[in-house]
């Protein structure tokens, strides 16, 4: 058992704690990444979000380790021993330290503001090669395409930038496909937009993410991401169906 120094300012304490912080950061970082599986990974816009999330996780792991290791170490090493009735060491503060732990976080804030700004830009921009309007109402969705096609499910071609316009007819809703990453509210009285470039073929769920009353929990719709030729085929079929409907009326 190694002998710990008496004075609280002895360098030895800080060497030990420093080593423990490093170990704890690594362990905690991997632990957090394991228990926080970010599902957003199937759109161009999801990538920067996941990347920033994981960067945050490492910072969180470090700061958590820093505080908790220092705290646990202090609790063990500076606990009152039996028969020791002395008071703690008398020091009231340290201005250098206080300035340091004000300025260093401030620098981190500047860095993260910058990174956050860039990530935000990447997570919200995209093209409008495909356009579709999603209308949310209590408690369902419909989707309108510019060519007049109306659908109960949303169909998008894979890897094509889509601009989705959002409109609510009654109360506020929110458009969210977990696998795509970002969400955007639908607000009565205004049109909002979200850029999504889906990167994976498959079936996903559009869910309403803003509490909108009784059946909010079940306000979901299907979205299918398909290869481009399949998309064109679907669109043509829809056009035919709807033209026939219009004609026979």
């Amino acid at each position, binding site marked *: 058992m190694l002998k710990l120094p008496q004075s609280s300012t002895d360098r030895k304490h800080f060497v030990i704690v420093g080593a423990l912080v490093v170990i704890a950061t690594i362990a905690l970082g991997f632990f957090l990444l394991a228990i*926080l599986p970010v599902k957003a990974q199937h759109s161009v816009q999801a990538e920067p979000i996941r990347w920033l*999330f994981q960067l945050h996780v490492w910072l969180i792991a470090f700061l958590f380790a820093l505080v908790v290791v220092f705290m646990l170490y*202090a609790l063990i090493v500076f606990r009152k021993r039996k028969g020791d009735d*002395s008071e703690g060491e008398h020091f*009231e503060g340290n201005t250098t330290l206080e300035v340091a732990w004000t300025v260093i976080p401030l620098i981190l804030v500047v860095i993260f503001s910058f990174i956050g700004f860039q*990530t*935000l830009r990447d997570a919200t921009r995209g093209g409008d090669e495909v356009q579709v309007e999603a209308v949310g109402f209590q408690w369902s969705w419909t989707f309108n395409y510019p060519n007049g096609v109306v659908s109960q499910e949303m169909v998008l071609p894979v890897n094509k930038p889509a601009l989705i316009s959002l409109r609510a007819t009654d109360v506020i809703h929110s458009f969210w496909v977990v696998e795509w990453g970002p*969400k*955007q509210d639908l607000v009565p009285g205004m049109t909002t937009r979200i850029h999504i470039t889906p990167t994976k073929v498959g079936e996903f769920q559009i869910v309403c993410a803003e509490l909108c009353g009784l059946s909010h929990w079940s306000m979901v719709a299907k979205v299918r991401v398909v290869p481009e030729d399949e998309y064109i085929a679907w669109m043509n079929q829809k056009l035919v169906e709807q033209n026939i409907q219009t004609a026979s009326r």
Partner: protein
Amino acid sequence: MQLTSLGLVRGIIGYFVGLVIGMAVVMISRLALGMSAWDQEAGWVGGIVFATIGFMLAVGSMTDWLKWTRGVETPFHHGPPVGKPAWTRYFSVDYNHKVIGIQYGVTGFLLLIIGGSFALVFRAELADSGISFLQPGTYNTFLSMHAWVALASILLGVGGMANYLVPLMIGAEDMAFPRLNAFAYWINVPAIITLMISMLFGWDSGWTAYPPLSLRGPVGYQMVFWAIFGIGLSSILGSLNLIVTMLTMRPKGMTLFRMPIFCWAILATSIIQLTATQLIGLAFLMLSFERTLGMPFFNPLYNALGENIGGQPLLFQHLFWFYSHPAVYVFVLPGLGIISELLPVFARKPLFGYRWIALSSLAIALVGFLVWGHHMFTSGYGEYLRVVFMISTLLVAVPTGVKFFSWLGTLWGGRLTFPTPMLFTLGAISVFLIGGLSGPILATAATDLFLHDSYFVVGHFHATIFGGFVFPFFAAIYYWYPKITGRMYNETLGKIHFWLMTPGFWVMSLAQMTAGTMGMRRRIADYDPALGVEPVHMLITIAGFVIAFSILLMIYNLFTSAEVGALAGNNPWRSRSPEWQIPSPVPEHSYARPITVVGEPYDYGLAGSTYVAMAGAGDD
């Protein structure tokens, strides 16, 4: 003794008499205007307003003021009411801040239990997927009630700590305005009754009450609006009183930077409460007016040309969060003050960086006014605003960090002991750390676009609120219990409480965050098992019940120890603070003679120094 000699009983009678009168007034006015007599929106609003006035009159909170208008003098009566048992004063209007503090604290605790029970109900429902016993409408009501009842419990708990402790800590006889103090407490009671009545009608928007949803739902909303208005009025009046008390009633020698650190926390909190609360009061009144009178503040309304001649839903969100973000610091700053207050006592060391901690509270309060937009990243407001609010929000982390590091500095090199209050203080730090560190990830707007309105946010704010309020509140209860009752709580039970609740809470918040990243939305009555979150939900529910059980142990402990606990003596913790230099329980007049401050509050380990001189130092 007659039941009606209790102010509370008279107040409740007054409430229902007022309710009937109010509804009648509305009906008569409507008839006079040629409308149908009964309109439930207008009827209930009139009823609630009169009921609240009825309660306040009947309970006696305005009696002295009414006498003044007639030129009658009303000298203070000190001590329990004449000819009645001493306990009755807790159920009637009493001007002693210690009584009012207990009234606040106990009511707050009661609401914590009620609000927590609501959560247990819907947590049981969420334990597995599929709707088992709570229909979505009821689920939404329970969820929404849970939030506001819990928030009210926090506001009252904060009021309890502030009212009981601040005058004691600064050696004051009482608060600056004792009658206003009593009024500010009692206005909560009719508000809470009104809030409970809303359950009969239901409402389904969550605590945020965003229009247009809150303009359409059942009439239960009206009760929520007016209940929150009442509780908000209490915050405003109470904080005004606290600010004046701290600024004008400190004893000789107690400069601002020699106040106990808890007072700094309350000063910062009060500044927020006095100013920001007015915004939510206003916003909720506007909702009520829009529902009752059709004033188009928030709901868009189109003319024949398709132009919006109505309101803007986003306006409400701005007003709401301009209060509700600063409000989250109302919830936590007092608790952080408790942490700073207790650490030096159990470390036997000065508080590290007193001035930095004091000013960081003010800094958090002030920066807190500039960040409300981080709740609206997905709302559809101007895109550049996302950047502005991202930066301002990240800035909050700086003064928060100062607190954490200063606490570590306080522990370092101490002689630490771990009775229950210290355990809860350390637990608070660990839990608040989880909450605080999950803040910046929500603040960088891009990540928030994914996490917003998911369970990750639920995990974040429960961790901040438990770490910043519930754990410190429990620490404070255990710590001042001997001062309040004169007896010690049971240490073993206290430790069991801690070791059940703390790991339970860690598991609960981390699991909530896990569910969030897996795509679990918040505020939904049922979820898709395909998300794979079912085991996570089971874990959250189990942890929730463990926490609830541990709190039952605490209640049992507090009740039994008041009878059988060991006598505590004046100063079981060897604290330097003035309230520990006087007898326990504190006598009616706390300080026999004015105290004088002759040293620093936290100079533990400095031989021969004291903070206060008790006998007025013989100077006057």
